[in-house]
């Protein structure tokens, strides 16, 4: 007692120069927000302003040029139609898979989700490469089609509109599936059991209960896919036809080849508006419906009155099996390209076929002997490591500060941090490209690191925030009441509990930066990274060295994921996959 009393007094005298976190913990998000403000928001805003502010005077010239040109209008229209098509296909084939994921029990569920998440996290380039090879003139698909007698001779599948569509659907379906699954996993099973107990057939339960409740997820998935498809750049360049250009390609051309930044700016603004239109439309419908006190207009009308009688014409087992078959086919569609890439890497250098003409490690030998590959590889690792650290420090601090603030501050803060992730991919890249050129940073390592960090921070913040929200705030109070200061509490209680999750956040921020293609494509100059080198090599020739690089990228992803799974299996504060997918 005496000891305690005396020591209590001693610590009181030291209290003056304590850092104050207290209720203003949202302030911890400031560094990340500041970083984003400088390197994402400012470039974007100046880029947009540059489109109406030419040589010190306000002008609409860039917009009149854009809207009077039948060429640009035609490309924009084609882009919108393509995005809508991709959106419809992704949601249609993604829904059964998401439903399936939701229903499969236990361990099988974990494996199936992994099979969706892996393609989702696999570098877009790896998938583009797989499809280029699969769809090539002498590729496996053409071989099969010709052998089956469907075509007399191999078809130009690769560089075609169909190729771009297949690529886009393949890249965006996992996102659609995970978004819908996140919503479905939160639908209480009890609703359906109740409806069943009240006498509804399984098909009717699905149509009247499950489908309407999963609609928010479907809408979210559709909006996300649409936005990403509008801004897609890599896939149409690598898989599409030259006569079927999409808008992002034209914008990038204006910015990086023609160097007409004003026009590129106006096109970017147009693209942003077009990509946000459906979201505004949905909000508008919801607002109108809200005023009529019917928060779910589509749900009630569509599902309960017109859809289910049609559903019921088909017997339940047929539905069940239809869902399962579609789910398995979609899963195969997602996973097979990854396997194909690995097989290619062990084939002969100049001929990619399945099965390979003969097995060899020629590709691996050539890769490691060629410093035109090993140098970018080294750079990629260095840049991504720097980005991982930046993202973890800034994103982690922000996540802690926001997670310990009110619900509204948390939501707004996280939305701001994550917004570069939800923009069409060329938008942040192009605005940063213009920014880097203005400040004479273009072509430097620093520019690449900073540019890649913009998206990596958002990702790290989203993942860390679900980790920290799993640490009850009462643990911190308990620690403080035990006599630990706020700082000591962070170090001794919060940090150890959050560490595994934070490492995972850093790891995925690293991967995100490592796989970034569009930004270094515009900004890196001589400091090219692996994705850039791969992108240019693929346009040159498809060979097994590229397959080797792709295989190494898949290996890196698998290793990172294995570490993540291992860390999470022991962690107290877990990462909620559904949370992350939604974020």
């Amino acid at each position, binding site marked *: *007692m*005496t*000891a*305690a*009393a005396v*020591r*209590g007094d001693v*610590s*009181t005298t030291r*209290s003056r120069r*304590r850092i104050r976190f*207290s209720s203003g913990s949202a302030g911890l998000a400031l560094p990340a927000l500041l970083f984003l403000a400088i390197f994402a928001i400012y470039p974007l805003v100046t880029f947009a302003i540059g489109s109406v502010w030419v040589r010190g005077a306000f002008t609409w010239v860039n917009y009149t040029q854009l809207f009077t040109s039948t060429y640009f209008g035609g490309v924009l229209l084609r882009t919108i139609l393509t995005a809508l098509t991709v959106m419809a296909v992704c949601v249609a084939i993604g829904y059964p898979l998401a439903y399936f994921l939701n229903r499969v029990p236990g361990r099988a569920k974990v494996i199936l989700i992994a099979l969706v998440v892996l393609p989702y996290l696999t570098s877009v380039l790896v998938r583009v490469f797989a499809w280029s090879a699969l769809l090539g003139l002498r590729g496996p698909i053409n071989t099969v089609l010709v052998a089956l007698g469907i075509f007399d001779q191999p078809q130009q599948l690769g560089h075609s509109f169909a190729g771009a569509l297949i690529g886009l659907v393949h890249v965006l379906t996992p996102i659609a599936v995970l978004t819908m699954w996140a919503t479905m996993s939160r639908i209480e099973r009890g609703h359906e059991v109740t409806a069943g107990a009240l006498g509804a057939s399984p098909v009717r339960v699905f149509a009247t209960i499950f489908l309407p409740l999963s609609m928010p997820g479907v809408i979210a998935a559709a909006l996300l896919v649409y936005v990403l498809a509008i801004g897609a750049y890599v896939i149409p360049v690598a898989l599409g036809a030259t006569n079927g250009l999409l808008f992002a390609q034209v914008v990038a051309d204006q910015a990086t080849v023609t160097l007409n930044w004003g026009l590129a700016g106006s096109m970017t603004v147009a693209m942003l508006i077009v990509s946000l239109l459906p979201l505004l439309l949905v909000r508008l419908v919801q607002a109108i419906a809200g005023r009529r006190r019917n928060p779910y207009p589509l749900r009630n009308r569509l599902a309960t009155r017109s859809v289910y009688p049609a559903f019921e014409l088909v017997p339940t087992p047929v539905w069940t099996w239809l869902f399962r078959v579609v789910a398995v086919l979609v899963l195969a569609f997602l996973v097979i390209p990854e396997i194909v890439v690995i097989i290619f890497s062990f084939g002969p250098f100049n001929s990619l076929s399945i099965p390979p003409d003969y097995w060899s490690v020629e590709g691996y030998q050539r890769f490691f002997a060629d410093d035109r590959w090993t140098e970018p590889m080294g750079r990629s690792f260095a840049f991504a490591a720097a980005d991982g650290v930046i993202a973890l420090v800034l994103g982690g601090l922000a996540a802690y500060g926001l997670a310990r603030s009110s619900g509204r501050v948390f939501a707004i803060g996280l939305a701001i941090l994550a917004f570069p992730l939800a923009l069409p991919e060329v938008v942040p890249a192009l605005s940063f490209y213009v920014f880097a050129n203005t400040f004479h940073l273009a072509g430097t390592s620093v520019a690449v690191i900073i540019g890649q960090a913009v998206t990596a921070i958002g990702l790290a913040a989203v993942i860390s925030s679900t980790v920290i929200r799993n640490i*009850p705030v*009462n*643990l911190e*109070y*308990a*620690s*403080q*009441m*035990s*006599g*630990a*200061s*706020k700082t*000591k*509490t962070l170090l001794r*209680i919060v940090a*150890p*509990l959050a560490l595994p999750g934070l490492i995972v956040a850093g790891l995925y921020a690293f991967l995100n930066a490592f796989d970034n293609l569009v930004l270094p494509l515009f900004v890196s100059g001589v400091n090219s990274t692996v994705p850039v080198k791969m992108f240019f090599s693929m346009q040159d020739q498809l060979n097994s060295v590229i397959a080797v690089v792709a295989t190494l990228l898949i290996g890196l992803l698998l290793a990172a994921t294995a570490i993540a799974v291992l860390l999470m299996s022991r962690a*107290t504060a877990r990462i909620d996959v559904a949370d992350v997918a939604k974020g």
Partner: protein
Amino acid sequence: MNATEEKSAAATAVTPTAGSRTDSVVLENVSKHYGSVYALDAVSLTVGDGEFVTLLGPSGSGKTTCLQIMAGIAKPDDGAIRIAGRDVRRVPMHKRNIGMVFQNYALFPNMTVAQNVLYPLRMRGWSKTDSLDAMREALRLVRLADFEGRKPDQLSGGQQQRVALARAIVFKPSVLLLDEPLSALDRLLREEMQLELRRVHELTGMATVCVTHDRTEALTMSDRVVLLNKGRIVQEGSPRDMYDRSGSLFAAQFLGEVNRLRMTLGGAPGAKTLTDERGRVIPDVLLATPVRDGEVDVAIRVENVHLLPLEGSALAAPGSWEGTVESAVFLGDGDRYVVDCGGTALVARSPRGSGTSGLGPGDRVQVRFARDDVMVFEKEDAA
């Protein structure tokens, strides 16, 4: 002992304000509002040294805010707060010297039981041998001496609760705060832990403030119950007083099950009589506090409604009411009846062996109230 005296002497020297020098916690006119809603409206409260005080109230009554203000989790908008004589308005929670047991225990999941209990001592820089002794003693006190090496997830809910208690008292805090400490336990365990908390309190003599919405908890454990409603203290007193002489209809209803009747009070002083609209009377009522004549609220606890079977066509004795049993439910240690007294339904609870056990629906009974079991309150418009 010396240390205690020195400390309180120092405290009085620093803050020469009202309240006895032995008071552990003093709140003076403390207010706290969220937006336009007052969570606490000028609440004053004193917890004496070694006293076990329970803050009881429905959700939204302000009881939790009150605790949070003592702990330093919430800051009061207005008013003074002293712990062990020291003004703590600007003292952060890690320097307030309070122990707290949280609703879900908040044990550190990455530490063993021993490490959890040692944590506050390490933070206070106790020597290793002192710490180990204190830790062992605290665990012995909560009867978990053999669990030192376990992790929290290897413990049952009741055991986790005991560890949380040990961690909160091991450093001999000025006051122990309990935030709905038993709400996560099942009923049997809850009853056991009520007695356990009371036992530990008697052994340590530590001033304790407990927050709960469970009246049984409040009545079983406390020296004093403070009943809150809508951010204000409604009544405070010993559990027995609060139960038998509730100061308001709200207090009467919150502390136990009552029959509520609208009646008219009249008669000469010292011989007050209650009359209902059918002319039935409860004569010679004993009023705890003066109540104006006229329409009043009457509350009678269900265990104070006494039933007597009426044989054949016998009439009820004068001063008693007559009724018919509407339903009877066996409760194990007694029976619960609903009796229809000509339009007024009365609930009665009889203990086992009180002679009512044969009663069933349709039986005629005579209903009697003891004069000091009838609680009379001025009429309230909203219940």
